[in-house]
C-alpha cells in the first residue's frame, strides 16, 4: 500500500472517527514523522489519558491536509506549492489559504492588505465591513429588545445592501 502523502510504501495506518464518520489513512514512516506522529500509541494515549490536547489538533491537521484538494481552476496541488513556493493561479490563494497563512508572517509585516485598491474594489470592501458592523449591532439590539433601534438598523442595512448591489453590477 502506498503512502497517501508521497507514494512511498506505507507503514503507519491510522483510523479516526469524527462526527460518526470513519476516516482511514495510511502514511510512510517519513511522512508520519513529518506530520508529528512518531508513535501512534503515544498519539492515542496522549489526548485521552494525560489530558494533553495538542495531539488531537495535529490529527485534525493531518485529516484536513490529506483532504486538501487540488485547485479546481488550474489543477495546482499542495505538493506543487511546497516544491516551488509559488502558486498556480489567483484562485489558488483561496484553495491553499491554510498553508499560506502559516507562511505569510515570515514574509510580510502583516497579513492584511493596507495599500492601494482600485475604486470599485475599495468601495465594495468598505460596504462589506459596514454591513458586517450593522448586522452585529442589529443582533445585539434584538437580543436586548431595543426594537426601535433594531428597526432603524434594519432600514440602514437594506440601504447599504442596495448600494452594494449597485457596486457589484
Amino acid at each position, binding site marked *: 500500500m502506498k503512502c497517501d502523502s508521497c507514494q512511498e510504501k506505507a507503514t503507519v495506518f491510522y483510523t479516526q472517527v469524527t462526527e460518526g464518520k470513519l476516516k482511514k489513512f495510511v502514511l510512510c514512516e517519513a511522512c508520519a514523522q513529518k506530520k508529528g506522529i512518531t508513535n501512534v500509541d503515544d498519539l492515542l494515549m496522549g489526548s485521552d489519558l494525560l489530558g494533553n490536547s495538542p495531539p488531537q489538533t495535529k490529527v485534525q491537521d493531518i485529516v484536513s491536509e490529506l483532504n486538501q484538494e487540488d485547485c479546481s481552476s488550474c489543477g495546482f496541488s499542495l505538493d506543487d506549492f511546497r516544491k516551488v513556493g509559488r502558486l498556480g493561479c489567483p484562485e489558488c490563494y483561496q484553495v491553499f489559504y491554510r498553508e499560506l497563512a502559516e507562511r*505569510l508572517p515570515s514574509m510580510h509585516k502583516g497579513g492584511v492588505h493596507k495599500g492601494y485598491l482600485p475604486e470599485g474594489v475599495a468601495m465594495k470592501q468598505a460596504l462589506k465591513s459596514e454591513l458586517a458592523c450593522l448586522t452585529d449591532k442589529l443582533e445585539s439590539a434584538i437580543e436586548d429588545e431595543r426594537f426601535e433601534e433594531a428597526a432603524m438598523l434594519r432600514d440602514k442595512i437594506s440601504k447599504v445592501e442596495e448600494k452594494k448591489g449597485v457596486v457589484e453590477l
Partner: protein
Amino acid sequence: MMRFATLLRHPADWMMGHGAETSVVLTSRVRLARNLAKSPFPGWSRKKDREGVYSFLREKVESVPGMKDGFSHELCDLDPLQKQVLVERHLISREQAARSEGSGSVVNRKQTLSLMINEEDHLRIQAIRPSLQLKEAFKLAHSVDQRLEKVVDFAIDPTLGYLTACPTNLGTGMRASSMLHLPGLVLSDQIGPVLKGINKLGLAVRGLYGEGTESLGNLYQISNQSTLGESEEEILDRLTRVIGDVAQYELQAREKLMTEDSIMVRDRIGRAAGNLSYAHIITSKEALNHLSMLRLGADLTLLPSDLVESCDRLFMETQPAHLQWRAGRKLEPETRDVIRAQMIREQLQSSLSPAIDLSGKEK
C-alpha cells in the same frame, strides 16, 4: 515602433550623471506586479494560454499614452545578445531573459517605463528615475497601473490585495529599490555593519543585478522585502528614510577618509586612473572596480567633474553584452577585455590626458 538599435543608441536619462544628487544614489526603481483574474500564472500555464495573455496585454499596454512609439518585442524575436543588453540596462529581468514565446518587453522611448509581460507575473510595471526619487518612480508606475485597471480585470482580493504568482509579492505587489554607490563605506570598512543594519530593518541588500549577484564596483541595491501589511506610502517612506541615512553615512565616511586617510584615498583613485588610462586588457569586474574609484575621485573634486558622467556611461557600456552589441558581433571574453580597455582609454583620454603613449602607432 522603436527599433532595438534606436533604443540602444539613446542612453536613458536616468543613466546619465545628475550632479551632486546622484553622487551616492544613482537610480530609483519601482515595480508593480499585476495578474489577470482569470488566468493561471505564467509559470503554471500552457504555452497557448500564455500567448493569449501576451497578445491581450500587449495591445492594452501599447495603448497607454507614451508607450505607443516605444520599444515592444516578444522575447522570441530577440537574440540572446539583445536580451542580455536589456538585462544590463535593467529593462528586463534575468528571469525574463530566459523566456521566449508569449513573453514580451514594452519600453517607452525615454526608457523611464518598462513593462514586462509574462515574466513571473502576467504583468510587471517598472518605472525608473535618477537619484533618490522612489515616490516619483511610484507615481509614474501607479499612473500606468490606474490606466490599465480600467481595461484589464486584475486579480485582487480585498484582504490580501494584489494576488501574485509568488506570495512574497502579495499585497501591494510593489518592490521599490535604489542603486547606491558606496565606495566610502567600503574603503573605511563600515559596509558590513551598515548592510547588517539595513537587513535588520527588514530591507534587502543586493548586488548590481539583483538577487544572488555579487556587489561589483561598490554598487548596492536596497529594496523593501515585505509587500503586505503596509501601504505603498509607508513602505516608500521607510525606504526613502533608510536610503537617505545610508547616503548620509557614505558622505560622512568620504569626508572622514579625506581628513584622516587622504593619502590612501588619493592612492586608490590614482591607481584606478592609471590602470584605466593605460590598461590594454581589462575584465568587466576590474573595470567596474576602477571606475568606481574614478567616480569617487570626481565626486570628491580630486578629478574633473565631467568624469562622473563618463563613469556612469562606462558602467553600462563596458558590460559584456553592451560591448558586443557595439562591436556588432559575438566576442570571446579575451577579445572583449581588449576592446573594453580600448574603449575606456578613448573615453577617458580627454579628461585624464595620458602623458605616455603606448599605442605603438608611428608619430
